[in-house]
């Protein structure tokens, strides 16, 4: 029996993602050199790997790798663990091969020049010296996978986590990578869905069929697009959105034509009454939404105190708060779809250049894309954290922007395949 502090110890660990229980009080003690995690699609293999890598924390229970917590002790985790993501495009952060290889080393404290030198040396050792300045996007899928593996190996971790390392690769590439994996001295933890061979090694000391395949097949990210519409139904909810917007425009214009603090105070009190007519909970939410105005209230307040111009200062602040509160009231009592319908109606005169159908499609595409892109950015952040103890820097914006461009191309193809944007 091995020391309890050595190897990978998962004790009663549970993980919830988007409300569903993905791992339920899992217990594992892994000390072997070749470990396979087998299970069906959606059974939580990748989640377990991310848990061991310290990219996510368990909701309950503990995870220890060689005695430390990989989620909180990131420096120790980087020295001990490397993770190869399933999709190389989720792992690669940098434009050129040498930068991608040097990144992890630089994060471990090696100087940039030294890290680049080591990257060149590693490429020469692999017979791929000509890759160093090559843009990563010009490499094939299999070559990108290989690059990711090299990047992980260069950080010299004691354990490498491989997420379906051979999925989607052609047979010769699979064979080459499998030989490479088999020769590695490190402990390998591999996920796979169909057996040993697929799991990347001819030798497997410990198959771990740990993941219950009893989970729902489909699991979204659990993100919900929140709108500012109040769930508390008020008398103003059923009124037509167009009427509310027109009234708002008229009243706001009026507010800017008045400069008497007394009249503005009256408008402010009336607005407060409007909120209270929706009940205490509704009014509290409304008050919270005014919070972002505080820096302006502070600056204008101090300014006018200093200039001893109290009447004007009071009028400015009352007008600002009332105008914003009234507009918020319309937002809180109008459904997103009704508001968008008004915008589409307003855009009608533009129909020859902007057909209403295309505008509606654009709204829908953005709303649909935001959660997808948030997931994508989280993945990019995970790839950064898998190789750096620090928070993501501006460099993550490059793969993020590239992801938006790629998704745009893919969605355009999907639209064309189904009859175009109309």
């Amino acid at each position, binding site marked *: 029996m091995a020391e309890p502090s050595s190897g990978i110890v998962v004790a009663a660990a549970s993980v919830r993602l988007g409300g569903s229980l993905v791992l339920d009080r899992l217990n594992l003690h892994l000390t072997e050199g070749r470990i396979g995690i087998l299970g069906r699609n959606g059974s939580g293999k990748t989640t377990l790997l991310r848990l061991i890598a310290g990219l996510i924390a368990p909701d309950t229970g503990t995870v220890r790798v060689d005695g430390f917590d990989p989620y909180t002790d990131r420096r120790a985790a980087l020295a001990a663990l490397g993770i190869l993501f399933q999709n190389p495009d989720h792992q690669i952060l*940098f*434009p050129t091969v040498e930068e991608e290889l040097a990144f992890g080393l630089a994060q471990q404290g090696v100087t940039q020049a030294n890290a680049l030198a080591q990257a060149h040396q590693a490429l020469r050792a692999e017979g791929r010296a000509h890759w160093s300045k090559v*843009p*990563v*996007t010009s490499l094939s899928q299999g070559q990108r996978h290989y690059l990711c593996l090299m990047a992980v190996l260069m950080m010299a971790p004691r354990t490498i986590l491989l997420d379906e390392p051979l999925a989607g690769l052609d047979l010769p590439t699979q064979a080459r990578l499998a030989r490479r994996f088999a020769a590695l001295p490190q402990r390998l933890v591999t996920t796979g869905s169909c057996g040993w061979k697929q799991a990347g090694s001819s030798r497997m000391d410990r198959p771990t069929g740990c993941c219950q395949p009893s989970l729902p097949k489909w699991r979204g990210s659990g993100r919900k*697009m*929140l*709108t*500012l519409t109040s769930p508390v139904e008020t008398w103003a909810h059923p009124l037509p959105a167009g009427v509310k*917007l027109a009234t*708002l425009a008229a009243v*706001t214009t009026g507010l800017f034509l008045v400069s008497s603090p007394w009249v503005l105070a009256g408008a402010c009190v009336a607005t407060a009454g409007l909120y209270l007519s929706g009940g205490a909970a509704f009014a509290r939410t409304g008050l919270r*939404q005014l919070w*972002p*105005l505080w820096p*302006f209230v502070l*600056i*204008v307040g101090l300014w006018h105190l200093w200039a001893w111009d109290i009447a004007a200062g009071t009028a*400015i602040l009352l007008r*600002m708060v009332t*105008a*914003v*509160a009234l*507009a*918020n009231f319309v*937002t809180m009592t109008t*459904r*997103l779809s009704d*508001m*968008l319908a008004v915008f589409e109606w307003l855009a009608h005169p533009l129909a020859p250049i902007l057909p209403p159908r295309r505008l509606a499609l*654009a*709204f829908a*595409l*953005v*709303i649909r894309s*935001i959660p997808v*892109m*948030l997931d994508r950015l989280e993945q990019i*952040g995970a790839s950064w954290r898998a190789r750096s103890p*620090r*928070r*993501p*820097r*501006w460099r*993550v*914006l*490059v793969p*993020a*922007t*590239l992801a*938006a*461009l790629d*998704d*745009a*191309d893919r*969605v*355009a193809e999907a*639209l064309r395949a189904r009859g*175009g*944007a109309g």
Partner: protein
Amino acid sequence: MERNLTHIALFAALIAVLGLIPKIDLAAGVPITAQSLGIMLCGTVLGAKRGALAVLLFLALVAAGLPLLSGGRGGIGVFAGPSVGFLIGFPIAAFVAGWVMERTTLSPAVAATAASVIGGIGVLYVFGILGMAVMLDKTLPEASFLAMAFLPGDAVKAVIAGLVTQSLSRMRPASLLSRA
């Protein structure tokens, strides 16, 4: 046609997402929000017309009631507040940044930084300062003084926009639609 539409929509989503993610760190460890950087990138990457339309689409969804501005703000209320000038200036800033990008032959890093400074700071601040002057009843010099609080952060973001645009052009030259 479809590609134009999806690029506009996906970059509108990108601006939103950049306001929702936790702040990113600068080299010195100073956290910044990336949303206004998204506005600059719309111009430098998509070009003038598509960039401005992406920003307009984003603003329409904010006005319709989605809390997509950084800090979780949204609704029509943000257009009635003192920073309305900056919001009105956003699409124009993206347009000018894109226009500058399209009309220079400088290297992407230099062109995109210059475009971001001219559009994302110069043009944007004109609108932002006018907006604050009207909404807070201040003279233009007074409002300009207030706007200076944002200048150091935005200057850094313009440089980052230049670096990101350059990296994109190196990674995939065809991805800079502003230079297509």
